[in-house]
């Protein structure tokens, strides 16, 4: 490590992964995910990797994955948030009550186009304000985040209960329900278009980064490596779209739709679901959060503060206000997760989001976020959420008893952190 000249441009390019400049930790996670998928696919005799199951897995992951992206920032700044499941419940309760009580009392009735947007805005505001309040308690009053959010865990779970009197609140607005998953998808054509746009954006991003490096005369990867990266990105994106498109709407559902329009379904008519709106929301959040993390001052300050709070302070960063911002973001993401979760159920239930705090923290940590602060990635957290959900669903499909499912998930969390510790020791990347 002490040798200053050892990291020249052409030295040490030992293997193909190095040349592609892949993050080895990301490779490890992808490897683990692929392994989980293959094992369950064998155990379920091919039922795990069907378009139907992949579709379901995707929409089941969204709510936890959305919150996990926010948890990355929380943990990177050396805090923790134990209240996200409870906050999700409060936001969900507020959005549900807005739709069933508050707006109807103002004369805006079921079916009004205003219903969903107003409910969502109110929910996001509530989440953001509650999160900011947590951040203020942590940042300005210097109460440890563990305590603030442990308190919040009890408070917001029961505020949700109080708001709804413990009742199930529903049915929710039709438009609102479309954000939950299977009830609202893009359809095949639009999905292909979105996929193509995403491929174009990925290639443009890679090219743009290369151009910037060339413009400043920095070393760049060989052209074939960049091309391989682009091809990989394209294959992943289009493969994902193809899979979601391959899951066909059941014939009886289609027939009912035709009936509702007073038509008769043609013989042999099929239609794929395509990308669910909820997944689009997650992708949009992932992109925004990644841009925040890597390309904005806010993100730079979040990581600097996590790496060395004193240094951040001495560089003129207002770390208290930063804490408020990070927790406010977390709150907004809890509200978005609550929106997706309740929309998927089509109602608000009193136990919505129960245990989600643990899943969210586990997803972030399995995804490589270091509890010591300063290190973490958005894509890692999402992948972590996906791995957790795959384990859970896979075990359910195999018929593992519920207690064992949770025992395995708990064990995997601890094991993931152990592997991470060993990995960091090996690479000297403490």
């Amino acid at each position, binding site marked *: *490590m*002490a040798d*200053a*000249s050892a*990291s*020249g441009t052409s030295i040490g390019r030992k293997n193909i992964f190095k040349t592609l400049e892949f993050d080895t930790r990301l490779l490890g996670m992808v490897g683990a995910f692929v392994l989980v998928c293959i094992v369950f696919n064998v155990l379920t005799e091919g039922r795990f990797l069907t378009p139907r199951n992949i579709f379901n897995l995707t929409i089941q992951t969204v709510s936890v994955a959305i919150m996990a992206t926010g948890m990355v920032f929380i943990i990177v700044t050396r805090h923790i948030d134990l209240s996200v499941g409870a906050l999700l419940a409060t936001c969900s309760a507020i959005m549900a009550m807005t739709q069933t009580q508050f707006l109807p009392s103002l004369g805006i009735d079921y079916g009004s186009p205003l219903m969903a947007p107003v409910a969502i805005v109110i929910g996001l505001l509530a989440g953001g304000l509650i999160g900011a309040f947590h951040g203020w308690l942590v940042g300005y009053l210097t109460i440890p985040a563990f305590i603030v959010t442990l308190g919040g865990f009890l408070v917001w779970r029961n505020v949700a209960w109080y708001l709804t009197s413990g009742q199930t609140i529903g049915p929710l607005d039709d438009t609102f329900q479309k954000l939950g998953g299977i009830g609202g998808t893009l359809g095949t054509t639009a999905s292909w278009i979105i996929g193509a746009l995403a491929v174009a954006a990925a290639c443009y991003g890679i090219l743009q980064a290369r151009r*910037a*490096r060339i*413009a*400043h005369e*920095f070393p760049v990867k060989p052209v074939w490596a960049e091309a391989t990266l682009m091809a990989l990105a394209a294959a992943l994106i289009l493969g994902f779209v193809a899979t979601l498109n391959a899951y066909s709407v059941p014939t009886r559902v289609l027939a009912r739709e035709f009936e509702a329009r007073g038509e008769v379904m043609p013989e042999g008519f099929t239609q794929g679901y395509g990308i669910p709106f909820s997944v689009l929301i997650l992708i949009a959040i992932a992109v925004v959060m990644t*841009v925040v993390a890597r*390309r*904005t*001052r806010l993100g*730079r*300050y979040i*990581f*600097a*503060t*996590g*790496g*060395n709070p*004193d*240094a*951040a*302070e*001495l*560089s*003129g*960063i207002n770390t208290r206000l930063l804490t408020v911002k990070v927790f406010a973001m977390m709150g907004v993401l809890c509200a978005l997760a609550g929106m997706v979760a309740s929309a998927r159920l089509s109602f608000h239930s009193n136990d919505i989001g129960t245990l989600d705090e643990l899943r969210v923290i586990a997803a972030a940590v399995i995804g490589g976020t270091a509890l010591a602060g*300063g*290190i973490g990635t958005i894509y890692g957290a999402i992948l972590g959420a996906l791995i957790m959900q795959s384990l859970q669903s896979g075990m359910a499909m195999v018929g593992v008893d519920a207690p064992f499912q949770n025992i395995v998930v708990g064990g995997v969390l601890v094991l993931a952190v152990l592997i991470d510790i060993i990995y960091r020791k090996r690479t*000297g*990347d*403490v």
Partner: protein
Amino acid sequence: MVDRSGTPLVEMRDVSVSFGGIKAVDHVTIDLYPGEVVGLLGHNGAGKSTLIKCLSGAYKMDAGEIYVDGKLVDIQNPRDARGHNIETIYQTLALADNLDAASNLFLGRELITPTGLVDDARMEAETRKIMARLNPNFKKFNAPVKALSGGQRQSVAIARAVYFNARILVMDEPTAALGPQETQMVAELIEQLKAQGIGIFLIEHDVHSVMNLCDRASVMKNGQLVGTVDVDKVTDEDILSMIILGKRPEVAAS
């Protein structure tokens, strides 16, 4: 010779700081002229770092005043200090270990693109430029600074203080982590900055270096200022006895 007939660049007047019961800095007055290097000496715990952290905005004074160019200034935080072109190399370096050299150099003052995003390529280019001047051996531009050697980390901290056109530079034991060759480079840098008219407070343990690099030396003991002397008019032994015994030499006051 430094011209000390005009207004001082900085004057810290009657500064006191206490932590709980400890008087870390006790009614200390020091000043600094353009193009001058003032050494701050004293045992560990004498209060040197605490004193200069008031100038850097890291600590708040309990009592005392700071004048820059003869004008009373209010330094509440590091941003205020930077606003007066006061740059500091902290004893702890104050680097975010998880970020690369460029991110550390520009921390809190990032270069941004017209769209408001951080311009990493331009910051790396600027970092390469200044490093070529300060430490030509430095090559690890894309590694987090925790992967760097002590000397390399030090040069990142120095680059950060020098890059932004400081007028007043505070260096808290800048050579503590360095080998002889790198120490020599810092010495040359100090000469260079001094020639540009920058004023430097240099906290340094090695009396010999102080005699070579500094114009004046202020010695602290137990939070109090023992005295300030012209290094030309005293010997190594005089300064040592100020540090150890807390006694002013008979010869020269300044």
